[in-house]
């Protein structure tokens, strides 16, 4: 009983960490630009496919493929931001939703066309697969790795946001873009960098998550609600908010599927409605 409980919390935390990595960029987009980006999961998918293909076709080692996924997704994000997204910051939310749903559809169709509708498999290196045992329970080594990567990245992100000059500019821009602009902070540039980093993190999360979340062409649609939920519940003004929300979501989802499998994904959606009713101000709606 206790052992399975520890196992669930552990799996849930690893899962939540992945959700956090993928969603944190979305919270920047929403908080900084008030831009509803439903296509965010597509960057995660891009990272996942790149990692899986690089390993399968060109024998790139896993630990090299991960940064590749980050860079590719960040570049794709930068390109899209310059070409399309920036025209939409001042447009209505409806236009933003239409644009990003259109992009998501295109990404799903393109992935199906290029790689087929099936799930992609990823061969983990041997030093990351297997089990180890703590407190009488067997744990998956890869999930431990996920947790470690998540913690390192979260600490790094927090340091950047809270200790560096660039981080101060990001925080100022989120709090009040107009005043920040008046003080000489180039909000557009700050946002571009933050957006590209967010997309890169989503790509990295997608690559790390092939083993846990799975990877097929409908990935961006399948997890869209989860990413939005993390941001909606966590808010967009801090890093801690989305982190706690993602961890909570991860543990709740894993526990729900383990203890009451017959209700399936029901728990998450019900939780989402309830949280949104109880804490609507967890959402940032800067107008």
């Amino acid at each position: 009983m206790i052992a399975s409980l520890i196992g669930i919390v552990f799996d849930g935390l690893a899962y939540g960490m992945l959700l956090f990595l993928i969603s944190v960029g979305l919270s920047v987009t929403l908080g900084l630009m008030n831009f509803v980006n439903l296509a965010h999961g597509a960057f995660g998918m891009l990272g996942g496919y790149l990692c899986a293909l690089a390993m399968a076709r060109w024998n790139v080692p896993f630990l090299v493929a991960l940064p590749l996924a980050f860079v590719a997704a960040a570049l794709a994000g930068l390109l899209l931001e310059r070409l399309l997204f920036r025209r939409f910051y001042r447009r209505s939310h409806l236009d933003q939703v239409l644009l990003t749903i259109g992009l998501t559809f295109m990404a799903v169709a393109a992935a199906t066309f290029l790689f087929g509708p099936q799930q992609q498999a990823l061969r983990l290196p041997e030093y990351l697969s297997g089990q180890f045992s703590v407190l009488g329970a067997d744990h998956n080594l890869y999930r431990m790795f996920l947790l470690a990567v998540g913690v390192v990245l979260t600490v790094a992100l927090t340091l950047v946001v809270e200790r560096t000059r660039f981080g101060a500019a990001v925080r100022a821009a989120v709090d009040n873009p107009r005043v920040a602009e008046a003080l000489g902070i180039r909000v557009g540039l700050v946002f571009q960098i933050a957006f590209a980093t967010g997309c890169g993190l989503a790509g990295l999360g997608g690559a790390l998550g092939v083993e846990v979340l799975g990877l097929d062409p409908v990935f961006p649609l399948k997890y869209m609600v989860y990413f939005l939920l993390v941001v909606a519940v966590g808010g967009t003004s801090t890093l801690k908010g989305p982190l706690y929300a993602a961890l909570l979501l991860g543990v709740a989802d894993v526990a729900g599927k383990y203890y009451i499998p017959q209700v399936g994904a029901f728990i998450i959606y019900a939780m989402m409605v309830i949280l949104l009713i109880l804490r609507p101000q967890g959402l940032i709606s800067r107008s």
Partner: protein
Amino acid sequence: MSAAARARTWAGRFPWEEGAFWLLLAVGFWLWPKHLALASQVLIAGLFALSYDLILGYAGILSLGHAAYFGLGAYAAGLLAAHGWGEPLSGLLAAGCCAGLAGFLTSFLVVRGQDLTRLMVTTAIGLLLFELANRLSNITGGVDGLSGVEMAPLLGAFRFDIYGRTAYGYCLIVTFVLFLGVRRMVHSPFGWSLRGMRDNPSRMLALGYPVQRRLIALYTVSAAIAGVAGALLAQTTQFVSIDVFSFNRSADVMVMLIVGGAGVLYGGLVGAAVFTLAYHFLSALNPVYWQFWLGAFLIAIVLFGRGGVLGACERLSRHLRERGRAPAAQR
């Protein structure tokens, strides 16, 4: 005002273009006799888009879960018929009431938030119902769909034939009647107050309009109409598939409305016709390409084509009128 005078103003407010539109649909019986089943799909999608136009176009409520009410109506009508109540009109009414009740109950969650909250709450409601239908497979048939839907003849006289003649007439009349109701509603003071709330909610609140209550009423009506559209689908195809609840259906209805033109009464019907026909012919080539081009088309619309097909028509006709007037003014 006497009854005759009221009838005259009613006719006067119904311009000939609109009459021609509905006449064309009625003549459709003889114009496209081999495609009546497809035409019925267009009408059903159009009615669904009309219901969505009420909340998005007129009240500005952003929703990605409107399929929830469409699906509820479809299952209500389908389940009634599968359990022996095959009379179509009462089934339709029951389905509309059922979806309307659900719309009323959920409207309290929807109307209170801002755009993003609304988007997420409606998405969650749609997914919740999909998951529910999936889990209750002993009632709904789950992913296999609900079969055994047997309809009695319409009004006891018209059997649902395989050519879809009865289905088309039935869909056309129901759509027309509901359309007239909606048309009446959006031209009433209630309808105008909705547009005011969409454009400036705080001012409407300051003017003393009960914004929340009106949005709740509107959302309920819209859900009921969506339910009737779903019920029409269930009754005319005599089958309910679980994808009546799917996220794609909610996204599709949004696309239809945007293609046709949001905030215009005929936007939903025109958009549904364009969308359904394009889907029918393009996805026959390749379903994957269809989704790709649909996405590209959406992006093109938000970048260049404000107001959809009807918006483009209006710009064109205004352009032509002004060109016609310009030489006259010079003289």
